[in-house]
């Protein structure tokens, strides 16, 4: 919970990781290139005093995670988004075991979203069923641009992908997070293309599609699709740190998202440990659209509360203390 100027905010960090990108885990040079790329994002967009040294960045472990996210970070609930990258790392990039241990140790505070790859076909489907039960999955995180063997990626509307989405429906995995942002080796397949979201969102109305990184670098394509689909949401991971490095650009993105998607479909995420949630939450609460961008209305406290946590709480059925709900919702709960 974060409190400022007498307002209390329930915070859900919708995008966190525990990764291991130490040299001992690199399968090949791409493992090194990948974490170096993340480290450049971190150095480029963080305030100076928030920049880590490289060794800490490659692996920080569960204790540091808990301190940064829940201790210093004002976060009430955090959602792990799996990033496996099995072609780059021996024991995957995201550390499933460590994440699940933390979920067990801190009931109610953490959710673990695992990943699948529809190119694993029947075998992967069986694995998904086992994972769903063991990990009690409510959501998954998919990388449509991930290279695997000879394949340069897949689309959500591929026949095999559709079978996996049907399995998600059956298994109660209702939140489908999709990485549509900075690349992971796509080639001629346009990895940022969000057109596949459009198709499956229409076909699977009981699933929620959360487009991570709001489709950057194709914000306009995402906005156009999201405005037509009731079950498409935008995740702000990677967008948030622009609040420091490029505040006008951040204002324009938030302004566009509020115009096209509306205040109920935007979710906060720090992408920890790319960035730590503490300063992002604080700056967002303090943030306002600059006066010389009159095309965007002022952001209200209620909108900030929804974006920072209430929207995600609703997607994940999290129990929000009454004092932290919006007045209308709190009233509705008592009737």
């Amino acid at each position, binding site marked *: 919970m974060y409190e400022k100027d007498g307002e209390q905010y329930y915070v859900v960090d919708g995008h966190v990781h525990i990764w291991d990108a130490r040299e001992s885990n690199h399968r090949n040079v791409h493992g090194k290139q*990948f974490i170096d790329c993340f480290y*450049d994002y971190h150095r480029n967009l963080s305030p100076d005093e928030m920049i880590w040294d490289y060794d800490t960045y490659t692996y920080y472990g569960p204790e540091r995670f808990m301190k940064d996210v829940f201790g210093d970070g004002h976060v009430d609930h955090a959602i792990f988004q799996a990033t496996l990258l099995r072609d780059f790392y021996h024991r995957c990039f995201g550390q499933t075991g460590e994440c699940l241990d933390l979920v067990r140790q801190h009931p109610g505070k953490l959710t673990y979203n695992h990943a699948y790859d529809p190119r694993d076909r029947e075998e992967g489907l069986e694995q998904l069923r086992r994972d769903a039960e063991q990990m009690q999955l409510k959501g998954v995180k998919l990388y449509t641009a991930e290279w695997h063997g000879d394949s340069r990626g897949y689309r959500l509307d591929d026949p095999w992908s559709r079978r996996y989405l049907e399995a998600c429906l059956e298994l109660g995995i209702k939140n489908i997070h999709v990485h549509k942002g900075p690349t992971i080796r796509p080639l001629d397949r*346009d990895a940022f293309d969000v057109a596949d979201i459009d198709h499956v969102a229409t076909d699977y109305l009981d699933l929620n599609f959360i487009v991570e990184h709001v489709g950057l670098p194709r914000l*306009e394509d995402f*906005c*156009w699709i999201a405005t037509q689909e009731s079950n498409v949401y935008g995740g702000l991971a990677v967008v948030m740190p622009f609040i420091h490095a490029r505040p006008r*650009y951040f204002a324009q993105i938030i302004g566009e998202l509020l115009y096209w998607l509306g205040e109920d479909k935007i979710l906060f995420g720090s992408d920890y440990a790319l960035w730590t949630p503490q300063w992002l939450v604080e700056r967002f609460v303090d943030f306002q659209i600059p006066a010389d961008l009159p095309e965007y209305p002022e952001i209200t406290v209620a909108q900030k509360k929804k974006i920072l946590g209430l929207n995600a709480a609703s997607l994940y059925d999290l129990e929000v203390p009454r004092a932290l709900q919006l007045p209308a919702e709190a009233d509705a709960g008592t009737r």
Partner: protein
Amino acid sequence: MTAAALSLEAQVFSALATVFDPELDQPVTELGFVRSVTIDDEGVEVHLRLPTSFCAPNFAYLMVSDAYEALAELPDVGRIRVLLDDHHDSAKINGGVAAGAGYLGTFGVEAEQNLDELRRTFQRKAHLAAVERCCRAVLAGGVWTLEELPMLELFDLAEGRLKSALLRRREAIGLPTGSHARVLVDHIGRPAGTPDTALWLRLAAATRISIEGNAHFCRGLLATRYADPVGAAPVVVNTRSRS
């Protein structure tokens, strides 16, 4: 001034200035993507660099091959080498462009189709963003209203950077550039319908913000990666013994 009156260095830079990042819609020379230029008696060698090693290989290939073709237009340039540094597909792209293998020849089984359609997609977006910039300026001028904008012709735009940028984008996608051509048209020249003008412009604005934002991001990452000031000039070495 004739081409012969320009130094070869200047000619090389003007040629490279015609190479655009397809997505960011800015020349590689302004983005800091040109790392070095070496001119000797044998020819010209240019090194390009990108903000991360994970920049999409299709865009990387387009820029390297466009640079090669732009330099090949120069008279008496000699052997041309364009090399992309520090990219996960550097070796593949550099070898393929040097051999004139084309995109499909370079990536073989990994490529499914050539890049023409991808290039066209970004040319259309660049055009839409250029229309929006011109329209914003016109509306800010106070003479035209939103309702009147569909009647706006190229003739009505003030001469300057915004108009010339729009004309360049129109040429790229094959739209007419005559003074009585309408401004508010899509990539195939269809007019934006009057009742939808506001929405149409709004989407164009989102496109412009998206392109500009990506450019901010890439410039920042490039500066972080190479620890040099944004816009730092490339290293130039000219040892050519003849002029």
